[in-house]
């Protein structure tokens, strides 16, 4: 039996266009943070959505020994949660309420009731350092703050697999690192699968454990960041000339010299 999240023979079509063709990917390991890399339009979001069961896809998605692709949407999203790239909308809803709504979207989550619900929501906000925003309205927040709220909503549902579509896109440098830190910690603590779409290769190489590079719906490379992010794969994927240098502290750093 395999551990982690994996998918076999996934095919996704949008109308006439085939975005993913018989793709087999994974396993994305439990307790570790994985990254999906690749240029725009390479099928990263499509793959995440297919893994989460959103949109129409054929193929089989497994989480450990459970076949996710045979579950109902409500059941499946409780196990495996996709966080879209779009930020939560600027609605006239308090941050706390938005978390409560997310928790209650498919009926109350088991084991959480009444006052606990508010405590649980606050703990999630606290993890991301935004407990002080609990009573503010979503339509007063900045994009970055709303992205943090979205992450808190997602973690608050306690999924076994967390699929994040560019979770750092609206964040400043401090929060990019802070969020990666939180996600690594929570992923390990809860022993869940976390997969995220990333564009920052330096964050990927430093802060993820398993990477998959996609181009045109095909897997170019998969494995540890060290093996996956190489000048060769970067040229194949992004059409760039890049080096992986070692910085003064002995850590890898990607330098881009130009277009390939």
């Amino acid at each position, binding site marked *: 039996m395999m551990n982690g999240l994996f998918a076999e023979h996934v095919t996704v079509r949008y*109308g006439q266009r085939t975005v993913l063709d018989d793709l087999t990917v994974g396993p994305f390991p439990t307790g570790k943070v994985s990254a999906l890399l690749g240029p725009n339009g390479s099928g990263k979001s499509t793959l995440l959505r297919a893994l*989460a069961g*959103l949109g129409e896809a054929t193929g089989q998605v497994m989480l450990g020994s459970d076949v996710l692709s045979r579950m109902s*949407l*409500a059941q499946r*999203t*409780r196990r495996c*949660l*996709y*966080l*879209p790239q*779009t930020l*939560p*909308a600027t*609605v*006239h*809803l*308090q941050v*706390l*309420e*938005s978390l409560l*709504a*997310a928790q*209650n*979207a*498919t009926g109350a989550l088991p084991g959480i009731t009444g*006052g606990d619900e*508010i*405590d649980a929501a*606050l*703990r999630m906000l*606290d*993890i*991301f*350092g*935004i*407990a*002080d925003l*609990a*009573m503010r*309205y*979503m339509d007063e927040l900045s994009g970055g703050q709303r992205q943090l709220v*979205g992450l808190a*909503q997602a973690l608050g*549902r306690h999924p076994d697999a967390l699929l994040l579509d560019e979770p750092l896109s609206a964040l400043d*440098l*401090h929060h990019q*690192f*802070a*969020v990666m*830190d*939180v996600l690594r*910690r929570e992923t390990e603590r809860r022993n869940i699968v976390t997969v995220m779409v990333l564009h920052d290769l*330096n*964050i990927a190489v*430093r802060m993820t454990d398993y990477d998959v590079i996609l181009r045109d719906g095909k897997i170019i490379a998969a494995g540890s960041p060290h093996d996956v992010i190489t000048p060769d794969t970067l040229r194949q994927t992004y059409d760039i000339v890049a080096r992986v240098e070692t*910085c*003064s502290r002995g*850590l890898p*750093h990607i330098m881009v010299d130009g277009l390939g």
Partner: protein
Amino acid sequence: MRVHDDAPVTASHAISPDLSAYARQVRGSYRMLLRRRAGILAVIALCIVASVVLDFCLGPSGLSVDALIRTLLHPHDVSAGQSVIVWQIRLPYALMAVCVGAALGLAGAEMQTVLANPLASPFTLGVSAAAAFGASLAIILQWRLPGVPDAWVVSADAFVFAIGSVLLLDMVSRRRNAGTGTVVLFGIALVFAFHALVSLLQFVANEDALQDLVFWTMGSLTRATWPKLGLLAAACVVVAPLSFRAAWKLTVLRMGEERAASLGVDVPRVRRGALLRVSILSALAVSFVGTIGFVGLVAPHIARRLLGEDHRFYLPGSMFVGALVMSLSSVAARNIMPGVVIPTGIVTALVGIPFFLAIVLRRQGLS
């Protein structure tokens, strides 16, 4: 660059070290908020009652509250004339205003949420226009559904077309890749199509029929009868709880369709359910009293400003606000010009617009 810097990064800033004290505080203010919203709903409900009483008492033949209560409790002790005024005219008229307002308020609120568009309402997406076309078929071409009694012909025709228009909207929303924008544009196309058809019928109509039709499209509560009132009230009583049951899902839907789906909400199904409820409520309301669409557009906006977007409060709030605006309009309709009942559709817009502008502009001032 920070990427080189291996200094430890903490995840948190600006949190009080004692989260439990803060949690107590937040729990307290959240409870306060819920209480305040319940309070606002109660105040609106009281205003509705006051407005209905006012609606009873004011009018061409003035009645005191005292006389009203006597007529209601002991119908046989008062003069036949007074009894007829209260039971056959005032009461159905005043209560119809409340029911129509509630139905359109709820329908508008759900429509704006599931179509993610602040301009969505039974009025703006063609339900009223379709009803008007149905009514014009009845009034001008005497087209009638088989087996419909005379008193119901116009309403029945209007209802058929109103419900048809929402079902069309629903069909469009079911298509794959049909975004909310597509549905709204389709609704607007319906408005223009039905307006053109109504104009065509008006063009061929004789003078009397034309006058009837124009009057119908202005919307009037004087068409209220007990059976119609009963039917609409029953629809509200059956449909509203179903809407309230979907409150959490609709709240999540407000944060974005994709996000709602990723949280396990079956978005197409929620949207279908909501449109079905909307179709029943708005088609009944519009077919009974004519084109009174404005309430369905403004009531949700007013409710949103007063109560936020937690749909557990927003949906009943929009219902209550709709009922209040309609009831006030009904009072105004009979009292602006002595001896004349101005068509309610006209007054609704005139009464509703100041409310609406006050709230929309105040919001801009704040943000």
